[in-house]
């Protein structure tokens, strides 16, 4: 804790003199407390979809350092399924959903195998829903969310981070690793 005490002393004590305690209280938002210095990462949420093809080696290395459990989640877009249903009928929607599910399972199997080869335990979840809303809600139960720049698709030439990934970085109130 020497670093923080010296930082607080250096930056405020000399400057504010006898108002030191008051300033500390008023500007608490900008000072680190001992409790928030280094939070343990014990659980990681890793959203996957058709746009996330690979997990970089550096990310596996990071997960390994934390020794955390990784939950893979594949959400098939409920709106897309409904749209297929409206345009092509219920059978086509069912077939589309099944194909999405099959792809999701195979992708999660591949990634969880890669994780387990590196001694990282993995859990899998698959459901249909809304990627942005569901990940935001799920994230509350995890210490870290790993988001691909491609998650949710829609990257253009000038927009190198997908809109879904970009919004998740801002909206999840957790540590994020962007890859």
């Amino acid at each position, binding site marked *: 804790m*020497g*670093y*923080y005490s*010296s*930082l607080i002393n*250096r930056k405020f004590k000399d400057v504010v003199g006898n108002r030191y305690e008051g300033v500390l209280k008023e500007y608490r*938002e*900008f*000072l*680190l407390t001992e409790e*928030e*210095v*280094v939070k343990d990462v014990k659980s990681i949420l890793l959203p996957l979809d058709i746009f996330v093809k690979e997990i*970089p080696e*550096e*990310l596996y*290395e*990071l997960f390994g*350092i*934390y020794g955390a459990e990784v939950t893979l989640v594949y959400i098939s877009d409920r709106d897309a399924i409904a749209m297929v249903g409206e345009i092509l009928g219920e059978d086509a929607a069912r077939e589309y959903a099944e194909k999405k599910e099959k792809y999701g399972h195979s992708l999660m199997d591949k990634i969880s195998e890669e994780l387990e080869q590196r001694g990282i335990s993995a859990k899998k979840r698959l459901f249909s829903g809304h990627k942005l809303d569901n990940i935001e809600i799920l994230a509350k139960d995890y210490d870290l969310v*790993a988001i691909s*720049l491609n998650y949710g698709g829609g990257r253009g030439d000038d927009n*190198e*981070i997908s809109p879904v990934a*970009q919004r998740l*970085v*801002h909206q999840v*109130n*957790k*540590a*994020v*690793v*962007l*890859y």
Partner: protein
Amino acid sequence: MKLLVLLDGSKWSQKAAMHALMLAKEKGGDSEVVLFSVLDKAEVRSSAFYLCKQSNMCDRIAEHEAKISSDMKKNISEEVADMIMNMNRAEINCSSKIVEGERASEIIKEVNSGSYDLIVMGAFGKKSNVNIGTLYAEIAKDVKIPILILD
């Protein structure tokens, strides 16, 4: 594992540095931490301009600019020195770089010139709702390694 920590003097970047320390310690071996800070000329200029506007002393803007620049340099050097001391205490191989220029492009240049594995940064912009999405988004599109953003 080689980690690049972005320091900007905020609480969130200090948190990032402490987190990097923990990661390097856990990883052990030949882990290395580089503390990187950019003295942004544009930020210095805008601060000087704001000060001159507020104080009606625009004839001394160059003086303000030099003073702000030297204060910022001093602050960041002290902060980096404190953090290096902390890293040394934990026996982490640590070095620092303070450069002048445009923040995002200097970071990208550094990442692409060194064999880094991870960028660790604070989520100041995100948390304070200021400059939302600027720095990490500008960096992310031009680097190939993951960016850990700590809130």
